[in-house]
């Protein structure tokens, strides 16, 4: 039976080549977009360089202070101060280490009259221990160097190339950023910008920061990562952090509630800072709406083409019914035919995705984020094909099955 469906499906596809082209184009184009999106999301979520200990790390990305007053609501939210993380988070009992780093800022510098934009980030000593950066040369700067306020830096591989050119070793050389000369102590493999909490061109000791890191306010421009001794300590560590937040004294009489959470990687990554709505919900909703919109038009298009195609075959439907096909068998046949079409489109989509991903990687559109069609992406692509095939096949097939045999036979 399936062989017979396959035969007729191919014959129908070959009969109206233009319709087939439009259908296949719609399907493969949609799938390509979805697969590239999936490849991107998959890479961002699953590539764990340099935070390889994600399974025992909790990310603190924001703090929100709220107070309801007569004249309205006071809210202050965003990253934390260095003081807050160092004083309150680092003194927690469970975390073995707490990496603290500032958001990256940009500065311009000039090499041989060429302008280079350098992103810099201030970090503490634990940062090198919580995260597993791949050192291509040299080593991280030490706790003593940080305490002494030495002007040392660890730079990314990309920055080395851009600033120093083809020099084989740059350890001990100086790099200028924000009109200050920093001595290079190490070079690490670059982090893609999508890992925004850890991305930077150069990493600097927090003690050389021009802003006052001793300021005792809670809010600032730093984020932190708590490292648990083992996976089983994750929940207690999260609880300990929450308890600390609950006991935290208000820093001003404008506020009466403080919110801040130590989250797992994904929750931390998409944290919006809004207490009422989780960032995860936003992210999922956004991805779902995007996928729905991307799929909606081609699905409607395919439904329309399918209805036309099926109605063209009303004589065949009449004959099949006359010779013993029930409506259910016919619905099944047309859905299978449509699935064959969508899987064909899916195959073209996969090939197109590979070509486009290859292009994106070669053009280095997103630095240090090599995208690829892996098993997850392929699986999601095939699943999408299935949903697409069913969605666009069921309605036309149902309409066709309702055709009266006599009318169907007269239609020719």
């Amino acid at each position: 039976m399936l062989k017979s469906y396959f035969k007729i499906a191919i014959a129908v596809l070959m009969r109206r080549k233009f319709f087939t082209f439009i259908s296949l184009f719609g399907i493969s184009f949609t799938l390509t977009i979805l697969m590239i999106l999936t490849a991107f999301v998959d890479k961002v979520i699953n590539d764990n360089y340099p935070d390889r200990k994600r399974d025992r790390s909790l990310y603190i990305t924001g703090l929100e202070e709220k107070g309801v007053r007569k004249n309205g609501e006071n809210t202050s939210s965003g990253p934390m101060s260095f003081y807050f993380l160092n004083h309150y988070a680092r003194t927690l009992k469970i975390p073995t280490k707490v990496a603290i780093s500032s958001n990256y800022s940009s500065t311009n510098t000039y090499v041989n009259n060429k302008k280079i934009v350098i992103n810099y980030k201030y970090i503490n000593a634990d940062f090198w221990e919580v995260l597993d950066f791949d050192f291509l040369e040299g080593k991280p700067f030490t706790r003593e160097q940080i305490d002494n306020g030495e002007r040392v830096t660890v730079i990314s591989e990309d920055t080395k190339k851009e600033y120093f050119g083809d020099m084989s070793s740059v350890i001990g050389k100086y790099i200028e950023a924000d009109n200050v000369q920093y001595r290079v102590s190490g070079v690490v493999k670059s982090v893609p910008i999508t890992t925004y909490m850890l991305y930077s061109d150069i990493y600097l000791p927090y003690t050389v920061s021009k802003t006052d890191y001793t300021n005792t306010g809670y809010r600032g421009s730093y984020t932190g990562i708590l490292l648990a001794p083992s996976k089983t300590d994750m929940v207690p560590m999260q609880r300990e952090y929450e308890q600390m937040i609950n006991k935290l004294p208000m820093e001003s009489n404008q506020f009466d509630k403080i919110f801040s959470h130590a989250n797992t990687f994904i929750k931390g990554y998409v944290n919006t800072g809004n207490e009422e709505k989780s960032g995860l919900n936003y992210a999922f909703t956004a991805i779902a709406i995007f996928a729905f919109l991307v799929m909606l038009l081609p699905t409607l298009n395919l439904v329309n083409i399918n209805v036309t195609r099926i109605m063209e075959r009303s004589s065949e439907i009449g004959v099949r019914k006359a010779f013993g096909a029930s409506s259910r068998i016919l619905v099944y046949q047309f859905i299978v035919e449509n699935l064959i079409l969508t899987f064909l489109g899916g195959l073209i989509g996969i090939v197109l995705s590979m070509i486009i991903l290859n292009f994106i990687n070669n053009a280095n559109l997103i630095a240090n984020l090599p995208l690829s069609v892996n098993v997850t992406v392929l699986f999601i692509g095939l699943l999408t094909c299935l949903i697409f095939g069913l969605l666009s096949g069921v309605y036309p097939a149902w309409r066709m099955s309702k055709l009266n045999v006599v009318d169907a036979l007269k239609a020719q």
Partner: protein
Amino acid sequence: MIHLKNIQKVYRTDTIETLALNSINLEIAKGEFLSVMGPSGCGKSTLLNIMGLLDAPTKGDIKIDDQKTGHLSDKQLARFRNKKLGFIFQSYHLINDLKVMDNVELPLLYRSSSEKKRRQLALEALAKVGLSNRVKHFPTQLSGGQKQRVAIARAIVGTPEIILADEPTGNLDSAMGNEVMDILLQLNRTEGTTIVMVTHDENMAKKTHRLVRLFDGSQVQ
């Protein structure tokens, strides 16, 4: 074999009611070859469609092989048609995307039979209509007479007890028409298949056992 009792068929639109068949009572015996004649629009094809369970009467009962058919579900009707009935249409209704062999096999797809068995039965049916050498052709590569012979092979491949033919020679010249008629007569004679044939051609009708004439939806002979 076929019992039609008080069959009435009314077509309704928002404004008009058309009486297509009016109180038709007909008994067709097993092995009988019956022809139905009448002017265009008199209800011949409607009657044939009702006998073939392709259309339901507005009123009346149909019994085929002693089985009442009024209460059958879509699935049961499909199975009943597949087993008991074979159809031949004036415009052949072959599926142009499929080869002759696949067209003939079609009724067997809705039964539980192996591919090998289907092939064998289809070849036998094609041999009966003299088209063993056209197995791999597509319908568009055949003449009108050949197409109708393929349609006959498709109608008989499942060895139904009844064949309903709606003007099977209507689109053919007299030589081809005679060829097709000879095949039907032989089927009736050698296999005992009950055949009901709608025709405009008096000569063809004369070759059958009995003639029923319709006029304005009523039986006049």
